[in-house]
């Protein structure tokens, strides 16, 4: 099916009737996903937004429940899961939502807060027509123009979008867009990422044997231990919990945390299993490229390149992957 670009505003208005629509926009100079105000035009020229769409499902500070102490203690869970649509999300970010789904929804424990939001979210992905210099999603096994995890996949063919529904949520969207859709339209060829990275399943296997390798000492040195890479990364999902109490009442909240902070793994009594930068950088790269693979068969890095772009010390995960690829293992 096809949708004319000119009808895009109308299409989004239909959706925003009963759901908040998040679109890529620039707020105060920072490009991120923000609630669409209903008229402003959608700017899809930018490949990736600076801040990932992760804070729609996993906000930086999320109130979990409030309590009130009096005669008896009264606890109230805070549930606010409005119906939401995210439009204009790129395949790499859709993959990262897929990764977060695996963590929060699969295996034994289902995170109710995440599940509630994920249930009410419809993902409308728009394929990339060109790539940034830091994009390397095709080296990570993704296609810049196809997002298997999305509800609706749209590809820009010049003046129309080719629209396909992948899930029944997607079919409902197609239903709602019925008057605007036309037949036909052919999916355009996927663009080529300029940045080629030697990523392969062997890399994660190789990494799992490189825990004591001297490479970590050298790679981790420029790191200054800030949380920029983890907070702009679409797949980082670590959080910390704390409470905001006011004598007899207050709220419990969870907020983003970063494994790069020096006190992230500091335990009671002061012991810290990852005291130095070496351990922390090693942990982050291993988690992205090896640990996650062992548990969920897919790497936790979607190849969006945001961390390489924003890192103050100009560290670059792609250079690291190439470095690991070249490293011949003595006992391999």
């Amino acid at each position, binding site marked *: 099916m096809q949708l004319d670009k000119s009808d895009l505003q109308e299409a989004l208005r239909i959706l925003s009737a009963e759901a908040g629509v998040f679109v890529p926009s620039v*707020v*105060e*100079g*920072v490009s991120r996903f923000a609630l669409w105000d209903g008229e402003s035009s959608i700017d899809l020229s930018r490949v990736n937004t*600076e*801040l990932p769409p992760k804070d729609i499902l996993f906000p*930086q*500070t999320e109130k979990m429940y409030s309590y009130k102490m009096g005669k008896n203690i009264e606890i109230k869970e805070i549930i606010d899961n409005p119906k939401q649509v995210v439009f204009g999300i790129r395949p790499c970010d859709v993959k990262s939502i897929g990764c977060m789904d695996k963590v929060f929804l699969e295996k034994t424990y289902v995170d109710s807060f995440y599940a509630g939001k994920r249930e009410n979210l419809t993902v409308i992905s728009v394929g990339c027509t060109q790539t940034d*210099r830091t994009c390397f999603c095709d080296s990570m096994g993704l296609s810049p123009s196809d997002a298997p995890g999305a509800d609706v996949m749209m590809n820009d063919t010049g003046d129309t979008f080719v629209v396909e529904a992948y899930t029944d949520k997607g079919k409902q969207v197609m239903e709602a867009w019925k008057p605007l859709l036309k037949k036909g339209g052919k999916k355009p060829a996927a663009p080529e990422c300029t*940045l080629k990275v030697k990523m392969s399943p062997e890399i994660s296997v190789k990494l799992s044997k490189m825990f004591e390798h001297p490479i970590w000492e*050298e790679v981790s*040195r*420029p790191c*200054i*231990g*800030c*949380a*920029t890479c*983890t*907070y*702009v990364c679409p797949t980082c999902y670590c959080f*910390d919990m*704390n409470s*905001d109490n006011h004598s007899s009442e207050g709220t419990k*909240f969870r*907020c*983003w*945390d*970063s494994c790069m*902070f*020096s*006190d992230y793994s500091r335990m009671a009594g002061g012991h810290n299993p990852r005291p*130095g*930068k070496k351990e922390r950088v090693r942990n982050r790269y291993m988690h992205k490229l090896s640990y996650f693979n062992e548990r969920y068969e897919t790497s936790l890095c979607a190849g969006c390149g945001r961390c390489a772009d*924003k890192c*103050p*010390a*100009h*560290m*670059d995960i*792609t*250079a690291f992957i190439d470095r690991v690829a070249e490293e011949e293992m003595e006992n391999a």
Partner: protein
Amino acid sequence: MNDTLEIKREAQLRETARRLLEDGTVGYIIGWGTTRFEDKTAPLFAAKPEEADRLVWNEYCINSLAKYSLDDKYPEKKIGICVRGCDSRAVNRLVNDKQIERENLFLIGMPCSGKENSVCEGCSHKNPVVYDILIGEPVEENTEEKASAERFREIEEFEKMSPDERYEFWAKQYDKCIRCYACRNICPACSCKECYADQYMVGWQGKQNNRAESQVYGLTRAYHVGDRCIECGECERVCPMGLPIMRQTKKMLKDINDLFGNYECGVESERAPVLGEYDLTDRDEFM
């Protein structure tokens, strides 16, 4: 940057680095190395003489290197650091705050005529203020008026706005802050062993990210480094959200200049930080 002079300086840097590594005066040298992208350089830690040739010197060498010496406070051998004007002031800053020993460092002075960084525009110390060896000829400094005019221009303009306008501006900026603490971790004046913001038991700073918490963090950091800031602009460069942090921290420097006489940090052997001393003749505006 006229290229011939800089290319000659780069060659001289590599040659000096190789010699220093070979005769063992330094354990390793911190400099700038290439990255995958042509317009970005990254800190490079050259330990073996043959690695000296990976050191580069071009207009993209913008990372400050001085604070890396904090990771190796007790080295067996001296640490070689390439220092531009701002890095040398950062070294002075760390030495005056008793965080590193000057004898542990071997400073390779790199006269710098400005990099791809907005802060280089009004730079008042292009030549390193302290070094053990200087690579190439010192460059010509900015004229006194240009540097001092540029120094607080942004702040003076901002002060013209009304209080509410100023509050709205800062409120919007701090709404953007994602509390990644990159500004704290890159700043040579922020050298505490355990930052106040990480001490939840004491409860200075909450971990939740709302406007008030970010404002308190922003102002507290401005107050903590206010009288020791060396105006290197790294906090603004590293902020992923592009907050104008220098506009906040340099406000206190401007006040100190107005109230206590001209004051520049990290240039010579430090006059005690303004908040660390008192003077009976200070203005008394509290009646």
